[in-house]
């Protein structure tokens, strides 16, 4: 591994997330427009490789072979590596991981990672079918369950085993929606997202309420990554990829083991920190996969940000907020930004880049951040993908 080259994210952009009057190809065009505007020094001809994070275009947009489609929409002619990456909710980070691997190995010098997902359909029942297929379809999805009831069971067990409360779940949602209010690309701009209001919203999958769940969202985001020697051509503040970790230990729910101790995340987290040469206490910020409020709480614990079982107290005490131990989900999270499956992981990397450049809204700017962690889970938390970024100066 000693021949590995340094790799940095040197720019990126996110399009407006939401229920968008736009098709999958139109979202890809928007991502290209936003990227080239955000990185003025980038020319189409510079880009040798394209990685396209897209979870279910076959279902949501009735379209396969989306990598060349995205290339055409964005005005790119990749000549080293062109591929689509699919890892459900982590498809966007997968695109970045693949671009990282390509550049680190020397196969690519300048690569774009774009994530695109169109999820709002005229038939939302068909969209729900698509979501149920993320699970082991003929054994688990067949029972009609999508993500909410699975994460509801995680919440139920966490409440039983550790005394976590609905109020602590709501504290995650309140924090992330407050940050989303300061992010113009977020789906939700709720003026009053107080805990009392969150606790009065309807149940989706008990004990989870509407405010505990991320939503079905249309969106896209793109970043450009380069080798170390090319980074300064595009930016004065590269976000260096210093570590990574990934772990998958089951797929069928029968093989999940404990619902509240995400062993895969503990292992992936340990590898991410080891490879970056840091400890959890070094982090200034983290983009954690808050597909549901309970997810963020279990993630604090598995990553070692707080002791096992104390994740609810950690957020309720403000330790993952501005002024706390580190800032978790200053972008607004999946809860506040929405969760276009393929775009989320890329939008998180855009956030890290912009936070490092200290050019986000002051209401969510992390003071002088140096180390950032990005995490995505996918499916029923059966895969965990992590990347560690260091600010260049």
């Amino acid at each position, binding site marked *: 591994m000693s021949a590995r080259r340094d790799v940095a994210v040197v720019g990126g952009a996110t399009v407006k997330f939401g229920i968008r009057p736009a098709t999958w190809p139109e979202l890809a065009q928007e991502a290209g427009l936003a990227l080239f505007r955000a990185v003025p020094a980038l020319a189409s001809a510079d880009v040798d490789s394209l990685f396209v994070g897209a979870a279910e275009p076959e279902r949501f947009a009735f379209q396969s072979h989306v990598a060349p489609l995205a290339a055409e929409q964005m005005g790119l002619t990749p000549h080293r590596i062109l591929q689509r990456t699919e890892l459900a909710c982590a498809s966007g980070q997968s695109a970045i991981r693949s671009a990282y691997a390509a550049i680190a190995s020397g196969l690519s010098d300048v690569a774009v990672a774009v994530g695109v997902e169109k999820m709002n359909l005229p*038939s*939302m*029942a*068909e969209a*729900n*079918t698509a*979501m*149920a297929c993320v699970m*082991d*379809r*003929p*054994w*688990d*999805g*067949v*029972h*009609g*369950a*999508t993500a*909410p*009831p*699975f994460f*509801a*069971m995680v919440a*139920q*067990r966490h409440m*039983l085993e550790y005394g976590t409360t609905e109020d602590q779940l709501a504290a995650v949602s309140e924090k992330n929606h407050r940050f989303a209010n300061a992010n113009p690309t977020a789906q939700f701009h709720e003026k009053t997202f107080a805990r009392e209001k969150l606790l009065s919203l*309807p*149940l*989706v*999958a*008990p*004990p*989870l309420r509407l405010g505990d769940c991320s939503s079905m969202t249309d969106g896209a985001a793109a970043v450009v990554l380069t080798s170390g020697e090319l980074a300064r051509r595009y930016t004065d503040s590269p976000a260096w990829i210093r570590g990574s970790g990934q772990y998958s230990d089951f797929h*069928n*729910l*029968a*093989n*999940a083991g404990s*619902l509240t101790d995400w062993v895969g995340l503990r292992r992936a987290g340990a590898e991410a920190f080891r490879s970056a040469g840091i400890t959890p206490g070094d982090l200034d910020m983290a983009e954690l996969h808050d597909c549901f409020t309970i997810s963020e709480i279990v993630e604090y614990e598995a990553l070692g940000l707080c002791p096992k079982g104390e994740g609810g107290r950690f957020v309720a005490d403000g330790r993952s907020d501005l002024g706390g131990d580190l800032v978790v989900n200053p972008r607004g999270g999946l809860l506040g930004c929405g969760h276009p499956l393929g775009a989320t992981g890329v939008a998180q990397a855009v956030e890290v880049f912009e936070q490092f450049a200290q050019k986000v809204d002051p209401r969510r700017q992390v003071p002088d951040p140096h180390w950032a962690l990005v995490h995505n889970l996918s499916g029923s938390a059966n895969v965990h993908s992590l990347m560690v970024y260091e600010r260049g100066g």
Partner: protein
Amino acid sequence: MTEAAVELAKKKRPVEAAPSATGAASVPFLLDFYPLERDDQTRLARFYAALRDGRLTTTRCRRDGGLLWPPRTVCPRCHDDALDWVDLPMRGQIYAFSAVLAGAPLGMEGEVPFVVGLVDLDGAPLRLFGRIEGTPWTGVRIGQAVRVEAYTIPDGRVFYRFRMDGR
């Protein structure tokens, strides 16, 4: 056509329409959740045949003795295909549950609200996911006893679910 091709064509019987569990709506094949279960479609046809006889079964590895779920054709630990079919307990206890109150897939909208949960089978190291029938979600508690039951969907295929014991 060669004789082999003729034989193959005979075997390619059309897949029946795919109704939902309630038969309320039928959906196109690629939106149908239920597994294909005939012996010309899957190597797990014995699972469905046993279920039709009221038995929940799975495969056990002959080499390491481990129970595998879902049933498989190769043990992932030993990479050996010497597996035996074994009967599983027909009773268990609820480990965790929730309910789908909104957002059901196509063909299941009419079944909302419904309960799903993870069930620890009595006397077997397996925790299976499935529908739990027999009581509204507000009446379900962790630790309650359930039994496994087979049910038939309108095109004749069979699957399993749980029912509150005594309901």
